[in-house]
């Protein structure tokens, strides 16, 4: 019985020799992740169902990452982080990336400058980027999280999917989850991206092909010789938006680059744990197969109001913009900001442009990279980008009205984020266009959607 990568991982995790799509399997979970938006509700269900004194199944396998509504004076949001802190202290959860270091009570001060970090050493920023940075992603494992973009971790050769509070509470108490084995769609990536084209363009292209529900209930598996040249950040960008095609999970086959990244992150953070990589069987059955020639892709844009409204940056270059935004788990990584800096170096943006690094580590890396005497951070600031050190989800999902970069008016915005449904970044009548960091940077310089190849030397 030949199995796809997802089938093989789930078979091992449910201790059976093989599974077939449509089967239900009781799967053991290696990591459960939750954050400040869904953590308090998950804890609520956990206590209601298992009792006030119940213990988490394994406090080493629960990772709690406040990241969504952090830098806001909304008191209920601040309270939610307090709920997490109390639970962690109670349960002895080891991996809690608190906003502040010394316990106590966290309150945001809106009067402090954007350049001053209002967080301590432990704070880790956006969960999907923090998980690999802190060494919690490993090939062959099962990672579930109370966030739809948990599928990002599939970049590391593991099964990763988003779940709701009730399912998460069940995992908290039992360490297991009942999953239906998905069918797998296979995407063979060949060739190499040409200049001005990024990983974001690959996934926007694929979603445009298969549609916003083209992978609903299914696994998306990425392989082929084109993967070798993709950085781990590139693979994360692609896996991240699998859910925008409806996928249950998105997964890359692990290679030497995966192992090098995973091992280095675990070493650096003291999170080393043995893992066993899984490879798909030769001859496994896929419900869909397609080959994507990376060299043929162009800078791509998903137009308002959903991620499958695909066009090329060139074709929609007249669309006027009021705002540009770079950030999130899709487009707020170090490489994303470096790409942005390459386009805007020595120039000025002509529309309001906001930059929110995904994690404090991204902030540090951007401030450190010297390129001709200026760090990437300096280049962005000099080009007129409003940069904040308050790493987190920020305006990617709107958030409370005082959120940095939020669309509080019906503006037209281009963004490196992942969703553009009505209201996603704040105002219900704002128009959001999704694109790569290159395309967003070029558009910020132009004031309308622009093809980055016209701006890159």
């Amino acid at each position: 019985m030949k199995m796809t990568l997802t089938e093989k991982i789930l078979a091992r995790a449910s201790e059976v020799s093989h599974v077939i799509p449509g089967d239900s399997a009781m799967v053991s979970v290696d990591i459960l992740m939750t954050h400040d938006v869904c953590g308090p509700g998950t804890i609520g269900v956990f206590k209601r169902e298992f009792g006030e004194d119940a213990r988490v199944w394994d406090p080493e396998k629960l990772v709690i990452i406040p990241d969504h509504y952090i830098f806001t004076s909304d008191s209920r949001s601040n309270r939610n982080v307090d709920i997490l802190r109390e639970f962690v202290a109670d349960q002895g959860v080891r991996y809690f990336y608190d906003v502040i270091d010394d316990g106590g009570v966290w309150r945001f001060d809106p009067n402090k400058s954007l350049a001053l970090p209002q967080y301590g050493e432990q704070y880790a920023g956006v969960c999907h980027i923090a998980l690999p940075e802190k060494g919690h992603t490993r090939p062959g494992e099962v990672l579930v999280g109370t966030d739809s973009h948990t599928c990002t971790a599939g970049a590391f050769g593991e099964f990763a999917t988003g779940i709701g509070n009730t399912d998460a509470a069940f995992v908290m108490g039992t360490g297991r989850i009942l999953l239906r084995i998905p069918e797998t769609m296979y995407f063979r990536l060949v060739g190499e991206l040409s200049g001005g084209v990024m990983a974001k363009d690959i996934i926007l292209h694929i979603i445009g092909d298969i549609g916003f529900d083209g992978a609903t209930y299914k696994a998306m598996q990425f392989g082929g010789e084109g993967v070798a040249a993709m950085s781990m950040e590139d693979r994360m960008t692609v896996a991240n938006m699998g859910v925008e095609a409806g996928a249950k999970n998105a997964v890359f086959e692990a290679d030497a680059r995966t192992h090098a990244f995973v091992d280095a992150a675990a070493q650096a953070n003291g999170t080393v744990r043995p893992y066993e990589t899984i490879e798909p069987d030769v001859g496994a059955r896929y419900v869909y197969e397609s080959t994507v020639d990376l060299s043929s892709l162009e800078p791509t844009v998903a137009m308002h109001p959903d991620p499958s409204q695909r066009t090329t940056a060139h074709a929609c270059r007249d669309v006027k913009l009021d705002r540009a935004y770079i950030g999130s788990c899709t487009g707020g990584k170090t490489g994303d900001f470096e790409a942005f800096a390459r386009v805007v170096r020595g120039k000025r943006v002509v529309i309001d442009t906001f930059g929110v690094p995904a994690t404090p580590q991204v902030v540090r890396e951007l401030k450190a990279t010297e390129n001709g005497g200026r760090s990437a951070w300096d280049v962005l600031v000099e080009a007129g980008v409003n940069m904040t050190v308050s790493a987190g989800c920020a305006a990617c999902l709107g958030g409370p009205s005082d959120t940095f970069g939020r669309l509080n008016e019906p503006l037209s915005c281009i963004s490196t984020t992942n969703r553009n449904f009505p209201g996603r970044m704040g105002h219900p009548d704002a128009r959001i266009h999704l694109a790569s960091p290159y395309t967003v940077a070029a558009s910020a310089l132009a004031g309308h959607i622009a093809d980055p190849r016209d701006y890159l030397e």
Partner: protein
Amino acid sequence: MDDTIVGKVYVVGDNIDTDQIIPAEYLSLVPTIPQEYQQLGTYALRGLPADQYPQRLMEPESVRSDYTVIIAGRNFGCGSSREHAPIALGAAGIRIVIAESFARIFFRNCVATGELYPIESQYRLCDDFRTGDRVEVNLTASQLRTDGSVAMFPLKPLGEVEEVVAAGGLFAYARRKGWVQQPAVVS
């Protein structure tokens, strides 16, 4: 199980994402805190654009909707994994969503919370019904009909997960199966 649901329908189109079901600014409400659960209901479908949906699911200040059934197009509930979405609809008094198709996590959250029946229709219904129509849904027969009419619209059976919703969600079901030993807290 009470297998017939009768009431007024609220009709929406394709791709109603979780931000339209419950906008992100209300996500700091914690569903397991009773007052906040109720408050989530008051914001149900608040994110639908006002120009396309002049009739709202929730009257201002009301905690209970006049509608019991939602009829939708493709990909209902796409977007985030927030359980706040089915909960907001359930708290508002919606008992069933009938859609051409559902996004996976939303579907799963309906079942796990036991808040709503997520039922797929055999055909697209959102173009044939108007907000305010009265319908009768028979879950056992997997049929929908307009009040007083004989025409039946076939629905897809929910299959094995119907038992989970009917039991009241994942935990009630898990106790029945012996997966969870702790007795339910009676409130």
